[in-house]
């Protein structure tokens, strides 16, 4: 779960990491209240879970009252990478004398947490060589290590203790809130030497949410995602017109790739996990049926204990109850496949022996209708 900037900053504040004075608004009227509270100038920042806000013009300076409404409305309705903002943050500008970069992330291959710090703030950290990387043991950073990092960044004497404190706080946040990433880009060093976080990118481990009631309020799911998660399906909505259903994340991803190679466009990723029964396929089709762009459904099931006839029954039930009204192209590797083929005869669903055949048929179907 990637938190919005303001949510990340709420966590920062809980851990004593300072952020500029700010106000969250979801419409112009709320925004106006914010302008009274903050006073000009300030920055308007779109609250999104995708990167590239700055380049997309979703962060804008607001110097005087006449600029406020047009800029606020512009950002409020600006899609970035297909996402509309969930609020606009009005944030007081600060007097920056120097910027830094700092993040702590889950280092998958080393199986630990790693600090990345750079004396250049506001940069794309992947693109810069001017950075310090340091793995940290789970029991924490010691003072010596923190000082070493601060020295490598050439942090001036009046900011050193503030930087070390911030590093400790951020690590504490990562461990206690179970974050996979906590990034501050940039940290501003003010003229008095104090440090303040100008941005916040925090990703929480979804699988840890069961023990973090305080973070559940940040969960944001679409209606379909809620429906999918209730059924324990993994579901991602995509742009195309072929809905893809399967059992197993890898299998569904692989099906997506093969559809794309065959010039088809996937409209969904739905993995219903281990059990393929009439009920699971029926419910999966129920989720898919809510997607407006879908012209056909591709089902790819593989497993030792899949009863093909039960899956066929689920598909037939979905047609009978008008859950779906588009054709289904299915490859179901399992027992009783001859019986399933007979059951589906005369319906709009067709069973194929290989996934390649099913994909060719479904792509041909959507590209000719």
């Amino acid at each position, binding site marked *: 779960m990637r938190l919005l900037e303001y949510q990340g900053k709420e966590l920062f504040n809980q851990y004593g990491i300072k952020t500029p004075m700010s106000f969250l608004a979801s419409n112009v009227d709320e925004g106006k209240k914010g302008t009274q509270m903050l006073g000009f100038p300030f920055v308007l920042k779109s609250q999104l879970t995708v990167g590239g806000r700055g380049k997309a013009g979703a962060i804008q300076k607001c110097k005087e009252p006449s600029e406020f409404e047009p800029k606020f409305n512009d950002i409020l309705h600006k899609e970035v990478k297909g996402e509309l903002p969930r609020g606009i943050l009005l944030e007081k500008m600060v007097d920056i004398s120097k910027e830094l970069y700092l993040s702590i992330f889950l280092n998958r291959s080393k199986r630990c947490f790693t600090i990345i710090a750079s004396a250049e703030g506001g940069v794309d950290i992947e693109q810069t060589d001017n950075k310090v990387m340091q793995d940290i043991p789970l029991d924490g950073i010691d003072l010596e290590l923190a000082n070493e990092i601060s020295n490598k960044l050439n942090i001036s004497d009046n900011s050193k203790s503030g930087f070390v404190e911030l590093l400790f706080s951020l690590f504490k946040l990562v461990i206690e809130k179970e974050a996979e990433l906590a990034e501050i880009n940039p940290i501003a060093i003010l003229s008095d030497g104090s440090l303040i976080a100008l941005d916040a990118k925090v990703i929480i*481990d979804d699988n840890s949410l069961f023990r973090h009631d305080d973070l559940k309020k940040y969960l944001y799911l679409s209606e379909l995602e809620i429906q999918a998660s209730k059924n324990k399906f993994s579901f*991602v909505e995509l742009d195309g017109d072929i809905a893809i259903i399967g059992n197993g994340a890898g299998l569904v991803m692989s099906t*997506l790739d093969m559809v794309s190679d065959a010039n088809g466009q996937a409209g969904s990723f739905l993995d219903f996990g281990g059990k393929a029964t009439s009920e699971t396929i029926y419910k999966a089709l129920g989720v898919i049926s809510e997607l407006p762009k879908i012209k056909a459904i591709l089902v790819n099931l593989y497993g*030792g204990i899949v009863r093909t006839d039960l899956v066929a029954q689920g598909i037939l039930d979905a047609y009978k109850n008008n859950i779906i009204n588009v054709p289904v192209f299915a490859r179901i590797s399992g027992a009783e496949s001859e019986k399933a083929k007979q059951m589906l005869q005369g319906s709009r669903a067709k069973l194929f022996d290989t996934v390649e055949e099913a994909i060719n048929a479904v792509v041909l179907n959507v590209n000719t209708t």
Partner: protein
Amino acid sequence: MTSQFDIFKILVGSTSDKDFGNKPVIIQGITGSFGSTHTKLMKSYGTNIAAGVTPGKGGSKFDNVPIYNTMQEAVQSTGSLISGIFVPAPFFYDAAKEALDSGIKLIVAIPEHVPVLDSIKVFEYAKKQGAKMIGPNTPGVIVPEVMKVGIMPAQPFTKGNTVVFSRSGTLMYEVSSYLSEYGFGQRLGLGIGGDPINGSNLIDSFELIRDRDDVDSVVVVGEIGGDAEEQLSDYIIKTNFSKPVVAYIAGRSAPKEKRMGHAGAIVYGNYGSAESKINNYSKANVPVAKSPREIPLLLKEQLKK
């Protein structure tokens, strides 16, 4: 070091062992719906399920397998070094810790949705105890036609000299069935797991079979997310890994910053992207199949060389 960890010795044993090919395995969470279903399937495949553990149900039996309240008791009465953990994710850490404290040397961690912090802690503790964890979020491990600890179906696997390492469950089954179809039986099938943190990652897994004469080739079924394939490519180059390797990567067409089912299958920028993995594999001269069905064809070519 990982290279000293002999997984075959633990799973199958040495020919001189009295229980060669019949090593005792404990199932934690044996009375749960998942644990009980798969205990039966593992037994019918030939795995010696010697004990189960479910706190509060000690003294009873499931399918003729004695149940104990604690791992300590179960290990003491069976001498088992292997535990298959089938408990729900929130209970995984405690179950794994108990297993390691009782002398278990190989944990097969089946549950999905284990918090990464718990996985790191178990990984570190296992390392300290000279033990190894496979998973979490793994279908398990199989020595075809001998035994399996996990939830994989039996029929895709046949015995032979190829090894399959897979970050995905269903794809491991599908790929193994294609390999079997082409006569490439498997010496070992090991599910790396779909999580960001893997007890036995790709490099660790390669170390397990590196020096084995009964393994002639390796198939790696990977997916987007993380840098396991990149690290593996580096390892293959730097250590002159000499057995033929064929790779596959699922998720080439997936959008960025979306979690594709597995907790670990997510691309941030270029980190975890299929392009990055394919580029690195090509530096290591590892061919990457475009689809699962292409894998045995590429393997055939590699073995000719």
